[in-house]
């Protein structure tokens, strides 16, 4: 495969990721310690990419860096040669299509007073609850894809995607969100 180093060492050094709604300081601390950087200024994703690049070929490293949760559904990631990435990309593209159908049906119901039945992909809830359900679906799919892979390329890709899911989850900060809401809705903003 042309590895530049031992992925087992990297994978065993990375903090264990578990589904946790509140920010897991331990994960950030461990990654910061691993890269010997200040915890306050640590960017977990940057650390992971930098550390992984030490063990990957230039080509794989570029591919690894190009993986982004928000773009993973794009056809470029669905080439059969990409293995687990392609599998997850297909899954995400399908999920996004289902969600798009749900959103369009909701809009039609709201704007035109239509009474379309909504696709049952998730349990209706608040935007945060629904987003968490979607992240959980992605997380569970990654758990499934990771079966049998502990210290190889697929495990590393799954690790990155899981870390990105957690980062999205941890970014949902009610205080900062409320600041944005108030800034956009204040009378000064008109």
């Amino acid at each position: 495969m042309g590895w530049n180093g031992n992925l087992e060492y990297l994978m065993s050094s990375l903090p264990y990721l578990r589904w946790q709604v509140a920010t897991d300081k331990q994960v950030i601390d461990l990654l910061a310690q691993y890269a010997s950087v200040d915890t306050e200024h640590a960017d977990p994703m940057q650390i992971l990419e930098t550390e992984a690049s030490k063990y990957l070929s230039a080509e794989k490293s570029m591919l690894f860096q190009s993986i982004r949760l928000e773009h993973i559904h794009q056809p470029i990631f669905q080439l059969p040669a990409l293995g687990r990435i392609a599998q997850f990309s297909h899954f995400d593209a399908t999920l996004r299509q289902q969600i798009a159908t749900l959103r369009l049906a909701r809009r039609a119901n709201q704007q035109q007073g239509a009474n379309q039945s909504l696709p049952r992909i998730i349990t209706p809830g608040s935007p945060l609850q629904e987003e968490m359900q979607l992240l959980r679906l992605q997380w569970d799919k990654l758990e499934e894809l990771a079966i049998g892979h502990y210290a190889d390329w697929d495990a590393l890709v799954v690790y990155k995607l899981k870390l990105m899911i957690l980062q999205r989850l941890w970014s949902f900060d009610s205080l900062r969100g409320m600041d944005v809401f108030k800034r956009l809705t204040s009378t000064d903003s008109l």
Partner: protein
Amino acid sequence: MTDRILMNKNTLAALKTSLTAYREALLIFEMKEQQLANIVLQIEADVMRLQEDITQTEHLVSQWIGVLAEPGVSVEQWVQIAHIHTREKEIVGVRVEEFEAIEFVAVEIDPVATPLWVDAAVEAIREQRERSAIFSVQLKALEKLEEELSEARRMKNALKEVFIPEAIDNIRRIQIFLGDVERLSIGCAKLVKKKKSRSL
């Protein structure tokens, strides 16, 4: 001013005309004050209700508003205001703006590329921006009406406390003066008549 008035019948007539006009104006200003006070109270209640709605919405969205903190997703492009439509309305002679509608810049939200929460967040922000726009328009109208109410009160008080009492006082003084002059002229005429009859 009162010392300089001319103590004659013309001034008396002019003062009486002014007094009638002052009394009519007082009635008008009293009525205007009453009407404006009622409308101000009504708009104050509307503004308070809007403020409560805004606070209540903030409380409701606080359960999920954390999604807006997600980096890389900016909802601003979907909540930009194109125009706030208002129309001019006359309330008790005061021209104020009244909210009609709010128009947002039409930018399509891609249901595949954007997160699911964007739809609900954009809707909530748009609704809240509409409330803020109504609030802002109402507040401006309220300021204008309150200013007009103060002016009506000032005019009412000036008429009631200064102009009318002053006119009444001046009328009284001229009437006394003219009475004295009349009595004096009658006395003189009698005296002249008596002297004339004695000399005959």
